[in-house]
């Protein structure tokens, strides 16, 4: 499944990036950046409420497929800018991480 399909199936809002061809191969939930960085796998959809500039840095380092901000968590302006510079896909939903993770597990 690619990010485009994820967006359509789960009705996610695209906050950053128009190139949604990246493959989603798994999912990781977490807000503590040290954990995410070392445990999230390349190609994971990362579900979090952390929408600050450091989340973008971690997404780049961990090579996740996309960030999904759950429960309508905010994306800071400087984070959006950094995401654009680094081609990080950022999505948003009003659902919580459990609901989205469960839905992803049914899709992949």
């Amino acid at each position, binding site marked *: 499944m690619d990010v485009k399909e994820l967006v359509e199936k789960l009705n996610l809002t695209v906050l950053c990036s128009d190139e949604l061809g990246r493959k989603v191969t798994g999912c990781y939930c977490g807000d503590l950046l040290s*954990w995410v960085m*070392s445990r999230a796998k390349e190609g994971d959809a990362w579900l979090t409420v952390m929408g600050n*500039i450091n989340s973008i840095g*971690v997404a780049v*380092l961990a090579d996740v497929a996309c960030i999904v901000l759950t429960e309508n968590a905010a994306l800071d302006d400087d984070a959006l800018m950094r995401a654009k510079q680094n081609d990080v896909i950022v999505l948003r939903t009003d659902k919580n991480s459990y609901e989205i993770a469960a839905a992803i597990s049914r899709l992949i």
Partner: protein
Amino acid sequence: MQDTVKLHFDVSGNDFTCAGEASGKIKRTLKQLGFDISLVRNVAIAVYEAEINMVIHADGGVIDVDIDSDCITVVLKDRGPGIPDIELAMKEGYSTAPENVRMLGFGAGMGLPNIKKYTDEMNIDTVIGVGTTITLKVYNK
């Protein structure tokens, strides 16, 4: 790869907007040089953690990287407060990070353990009131 590739970065303290820039650039450089993707990831994670520590705990510092075909060496030097008890600091979950930093997702107390986990050699040289120098080595096997 014939010669050593050297990189240098200045990291400013308490500036979270730039934190991660050095590790990002190191990652890109290693990728371009054709290093194995898992080695690149290991180096990037370790340097990111150490870089963030300099920002949070030591008011910034400098990073020097030596890239050889068989070994990546990273030296992170700060003039921060030093680490009083290295053994305690190395414990998973131990953190003195203030609340405002925790709100950003840092302060899990996993930084130093992560650095250890993702490098082949890690040396901490610290003097109270003078600063800390962390030297990391990752071998290209």
